[in-house]
């Protein structure tokens, strides 16, 4: 156990981190005290921690994602504060390195992904008319492993030190030779644990969507969000194992002294970059495609029109998925693989703009002559199109291998991918949250606050990142903790920092909106408040745990819209109610979360004997699960009948639209 000095165990000596340590301790005490005081321990264990209900798991994903958004956002604000003026002394170079690393990892892997997976969890089974995902307990395990990895990664900045080699963690910098402290072990191990969860989610959703669709829901009648979730799951299953292997090799290099990625002894540091982006580029589409699905739903609903070019949308999605596997080298043209390789990947990269362009035009044509309702959700979708197009166009600029040598490693690139990922993912999850919030909680988010949130966030976003294009073109490099006054960068950096404050204000309004709506929003709303088109709106809000008393029958695309139009399939007769078979809750996924967390923590500190002992727990968990014959339980007819009568009106019809 000699790999870390005990006085380095807790990070000390920095007032910022001391403040964080104190606030973490106080928050944990507050949560423990609050749960005890309100006598909620049993409730939280029974209703949330052990749940296998896809909607609750989805909500937990979303809560975790919002917390991580806050954490990653604080990182971003610190960076913006540090670069707001030349030669600022707020952060040291080392601290800055740690902060841009954790900002990147957290925003992509612990914010964007769980946010989207959370929405997928809530919505997909409902959209295909199923009662849960194919493997409910596996779904819970996915969540808890993600959570385990996320928490392990997050404690790094107070215990042992944060990873500091960038979210890409390139070798040789990330290797033992140049980063001898244990900090980068956190990267390898936390992402590995979370990655297992993601892979299982991918498998789960493929099986769910292929096998559990209700009667009549053919593939080409599936809502667009379900389609993108299916394709995304396919990319997850293809791409995540590459990352798993790369991280395992990284772990061997760092923990056991192998030489897969080292410069000496026959290792290849470039192999890391290659494997990282073989996963990393598909990862971009893993987060972008479901977001496109959300926009498709929102735009169709609030234009009150069927999605334009549905088939071309499906083909474009599949095309993007295939192309996403063959563009990875555009992240490292400057590595110098020669003109042949760079030209090939320039071409494939420009090619991927074609299906993406098809999607943009389909959304525009969906809105054409539609009766557009400017709800908060629709505002995000509307703002997405022009801002994302800026991201896309600068992407085509970067796609040209020869030109990329000029842009590489500058803030132009940073501005580009923020213009892709913030409109492409963050706007989408906000749109999705405003849109599906009533489905999840039975009340809406406040529309007025929603508009404040939208405008502040949007203006802040553009003011923050637009100047970075020009800074980059002027030669400001990324990941540099400061710059000189003579560089002339100061005004644009300051403008960008001001933008980030507006952005943060937007996020604060969003948080306040959640608080306000939980306390004061009107609970007496229709189960279909947006007059929407897909099946998730055909049942109660919040959705009863068995989803549908009678599984809906689908006769066309936009199934619920047709059901409303033809007034069929909306009623429920008492004679139609049958017992429903549901899966039982299980505490095992949470146990696995704890055990994986402990094993991961020991491995980070390279304490191999405790890690080996703790990992016996994982094997015991696997064996226990193999002999677990719990087949679930049946909900009796009376209970269903009672639940249904609380939300259906007397004729057994869906409530009318309120607005």
């Amino acid at each position, binding site marked *: 156990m000699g790999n870390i000095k005990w006085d380095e165990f807790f990070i000390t000596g920095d007032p910022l981190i001391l403040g964080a340590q104190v606030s973490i301790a106080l928050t944990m005490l507050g949560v423990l005290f609050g749960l005890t005081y309100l006598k909620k321990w049993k409730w939280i264990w029974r209703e949330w921690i052990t749940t296998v209900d896809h909607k609750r798991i989805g909500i937990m994903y979303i809560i975790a994602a919002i917390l991580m958004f806050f954490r990653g956002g604080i990182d971003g604000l610190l960076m913006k504060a540090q670069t707001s003026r030349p030669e600022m002394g707020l952060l040291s170079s080392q601290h800055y390195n740690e902060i841009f690393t954790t900002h990147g990892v957290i925003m992509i892997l612990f914010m964007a992904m769980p946010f989207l997976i959370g929405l997928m969890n809530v919505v997909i089974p409902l959209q295909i008319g199923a009662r849960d995902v194919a493997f409910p307990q596996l779904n819970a395990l996915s969540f808890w492993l993600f959570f385990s990895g996320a928490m392990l990664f997050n404690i790094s900045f107070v215990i042992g030190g944060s990873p500091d080699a960038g979210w890409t963690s390139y070798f040789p910098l990330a290797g033992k030779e140049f980063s001898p402290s244990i900090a980068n072990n956190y990267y390898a191990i936390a992402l590995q644990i979370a990655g297992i969860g993601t892979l299982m989610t991918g498998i789960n959703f493929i099986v769910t969507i292929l096998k559990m669709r209700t009667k009549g829901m053919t593939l080409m009648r599936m809502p667009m969000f379900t389609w993108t979730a299916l394709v995304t799951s396919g990319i997850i299953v293809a791409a995540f194992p*590459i990352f798993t292997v790369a991280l395992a090799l990284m772990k061997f290099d760092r923990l056991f002294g192998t030489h897969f990625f080292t410069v000496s002894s026959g290792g290849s540091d470039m*192999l890391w970059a290659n494997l990282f982006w073989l996963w990393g580029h598909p990862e971009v589409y893993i987060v972008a495609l479901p977001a496109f699905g959300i926009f498709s739903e929102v735009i169709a609903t609030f234009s009150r029109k069927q999605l334009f070019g549905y088939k071309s949308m499906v083909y474009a999605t599949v095309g993007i998925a295939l192309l996403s*596997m063959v563009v*990875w080298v555009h992240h490292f043209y400057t590595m*110098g*693989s020669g*003109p042949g*390789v*760079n030209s090939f990947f320039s071409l494939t990269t420009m090619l991927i703009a074609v299906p993406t362009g098809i999607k943009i035009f389909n959304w525009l044509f969906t809105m054409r002559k539609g009766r557009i309702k400017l709800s908060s959700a629709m505002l995000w979708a509307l703002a997405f199109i022009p801002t994302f197009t800026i991201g896309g166009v600068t992407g085509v600029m970067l796609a040209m291998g020869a030109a990329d040598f000029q842009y590489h490693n500058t803030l132009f690139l940073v501005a580009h991918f923020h213009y892709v990922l913030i409109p492409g993912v963050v706007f989408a999850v906000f749109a999705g949250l405003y849109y599906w919030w009533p489905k999840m909680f039975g009340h809406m988010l406040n529309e007025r606050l929603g508009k404040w949130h939208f405008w502040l966030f949007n203006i802040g976003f553009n003011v923050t990142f637009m100047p970075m294009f020009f800074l980059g073109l002027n030669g400001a490099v990324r990941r540099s903790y400061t710059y000189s006054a003579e560089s002339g960068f100061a005004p644009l950096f300051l403008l960008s920092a001001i933008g980030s404050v507006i952005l943060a204000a937007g996020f604060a309004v969003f948080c306040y909106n959640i608080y306000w709506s939980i306390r004061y929003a009107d609970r007496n709303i229709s189960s279909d408040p947006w007059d929407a088109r897909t099946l998730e709106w055909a049942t109660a809000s919040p959705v009863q745990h068995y989803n549908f008393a009678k599984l809906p029958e689908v006769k066309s695309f936009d199934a619920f819209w047709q059901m409303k139009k033809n007034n069929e399939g909306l009623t429920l007769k008492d004679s139609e109610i049958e017992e429903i078979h549901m899966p039982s809750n299980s505490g095992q996924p949470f146990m696995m979360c704890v055990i994986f967390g402990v094993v991961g923590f020991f491995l980070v500190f390279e304490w191999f004997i405790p890690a080996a002992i703790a990992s016996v727990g994982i094997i015991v968990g696997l064996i226990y699960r193999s002999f677990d014959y719990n087949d679930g339980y049946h909900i009796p007819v009376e209970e269903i009948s009672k639940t249904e009568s609380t939300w259906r009106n007397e004729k057994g019809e869906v409530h009318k639209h309120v607005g």
Partner: protein
Amino acid sequence: MEKEVKRFPVSHVIGFLASLALTFIAAVIALKTSLSFKAIMWIIGSLAVIQAGLQLFMFMHMTEGEDGKTNIINIAYGVFVAVVVVVGSVWVLTSGHAAH
């Protein structure tokens, strides 16, 4: 169902004979010829891939049943990803500056 049981399994026999032939050809090429090592590896490697495909179609009923289409898409996608990862990585890491 019964009809299928009674029918003479032509495809199985063909598959079996073809597999035998491919195995023997591989063995003969590897042990009895004086081709270069590289050539032998290429030839027997290709024969192995052909035989694997044969097995999938003739014996493992890949195309049959309600999931036939899904199976084919699965395997094609799997092969695509594997080829991209392996051939792509080798190509990228052995050309340009990386090749020295």
